[in-house]
């Protein structure tokens, strides 16, 4: 189980998460919704062990996490598909490099990268292209392949299909579902699209409530909202 409890994150004067919690069991799909800016991507980064929260705990399959941003093996247990693919890849890599990089870093066979590319609908002509030579959706498919490369036990999809046409969205969700059924991985699907989340998770959707700005911390421009 991937469990986050009482997660608090503060950036400077901004409290972004205030005792947020979410749990994903193996084999389960959990949908996570909430208004823009409420902290979904921040919570996703905490769960993917990429961001140390100011407070709270993350427990991965019974083991409390003490160290963030460290390398294998714990990091590879959770895969994250970032909301913004253009910010999530090295612009010098080809799409195939993007997919093989985690395999190479973990000394796994690189042949898997080709299979993944095909499964995700990246035709061979695209493999040698660099990010600026492909569409946003093509780049996102490479990012999905990269996240699946090391077969994580938990997969966090942060607005994975947010700029994709309906057919490509249905295709990617079907690939992730096939992966989940084959490996028993747990999936956290973050999106604004409630209809998508309802359909994908079979109604297993949580709402992340926005954190009210702390009064003293609110800037003088009047960003405060009343409880």
């Amino acid at each position, binding site marked *: 189980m991937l469990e986050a409890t009482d997660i608090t994150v503060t950036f400077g004067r901004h409290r972004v998460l205030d005792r947020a919690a979410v749990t994903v069991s193996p084999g389960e799909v959990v949908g996570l919704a909430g208004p823009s800016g409420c902290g979904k991507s921040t919570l996703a980064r905490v769960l993917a062990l990429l961001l140390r929260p100011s407070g709270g705990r993350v427990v991965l399959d019974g083991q409390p996490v003490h160290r963030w941003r460290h390398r294998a093996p714990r990091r590879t247990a959770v895969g994250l598909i970032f909301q*913004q693919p253009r910010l999530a890849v090295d612009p010098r890599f080809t799409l195939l490099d993007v997919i093989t990089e985690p395999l190479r870093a973990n000394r796994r066979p690189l042949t898997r990268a080709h299979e993944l590319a095909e499964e995700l609908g990246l035709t061979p002509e695209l493999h040698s292209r660099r990010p600026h030579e*492909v*569409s946003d959706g093509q780049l996102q498919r490479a990012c999905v392949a990269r996240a699946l490369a090391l077969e994580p036990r938990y997969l966090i999809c942060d607005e994975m299909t947010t700029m994709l046409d309906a*057919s490509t969205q*249905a295709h990617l*969700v079907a690939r992730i579902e096939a992966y989940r059924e084959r490996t028993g991985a747990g999936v956290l699907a973050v999106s*604004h699209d409630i209809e998508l989340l309802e359909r994908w998770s079979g109604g297993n959707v949580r709402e992340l409530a926005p954190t009210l700005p702390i009064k003293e911390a609110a800037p003088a421009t009047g*960003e405060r909202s009343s409880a």
Partner: protein
Amino acid sequence: MKLRVEGLSVRFRLPGAVVHAVTDARFELREGHCLALVGESGCGKSVMAHALLGLLPANATVTGHAWLDSLDLVAAGERTLAREVRGRRIGLVPQSPAAHLTPVRTARAQLAEALRELGRPETPDELARRAGLRPGDLDRYPHQLSGGMAQRVANALALAGDPPLILADEPTTGLDRPLVEATMAELRRLCDEGRAVLLITHDLRAAEQIADDVAVMYASRIVELTEARTFFTAPRHPYAAGLLDALPTRAFTPVPGQPPELTRLPGGCAFQPRCPRATALCDEQPVLNGVACHHA
């Protein structure tokens, strides 16, 4: 204001291959109207928008015409495009806006600069409010913005020069439903006041809310161009029908088969390998007459 696109094509040269990104696009967009452009990821939507603004990289070749009133955007030089067109006569909301913001400057500084360059009287706060941002959000640097906030900053930037034509490439990415609706309402209001909007979107529900017409693109070509009402109730092209069926509120099944390779398109209809209605007739390229299909 009228945009008339006539036989617009874009090719990218790559080592050993040519990408057919846009092929023979033809459409008109008049003031007061919103045209939605939809289609499969990688079919050429963003490239079409960039071609209109002369924003393609050096390996691209653009042919055909795109008349913005009496100015041919394809033939216009970089100077004209930079001084008169971008931001002033045509506003662009780029896809993946976070990648287009300057990392070292706050959102407010970027909006202020755009307004100053365009000689506009509004303040960044007023502009931002129209895009659904709170003034406090503007003090942040791009990396401190959530995905949906970066989108709203990009939307505000595109409106800064009050351009008569707005090319909005996925303007609702990362926005929650109330913000999507507010953004659509704002774009519709601009149309009703006499501007024109080309709305590239995956969000068919948003498109339905404001589009007068819908253009469906597949493998670099517009394959259906019709009134929005017709598209949503009775799409004629088999690909358009497949796209609507893929919605989570409908069958949620993808169009079967692999996306086409734009470096090796077949001579006939590019949808043929995936089309349930294909016959021998489809070896010939269908022409667009409302719909480009031999069996629609």
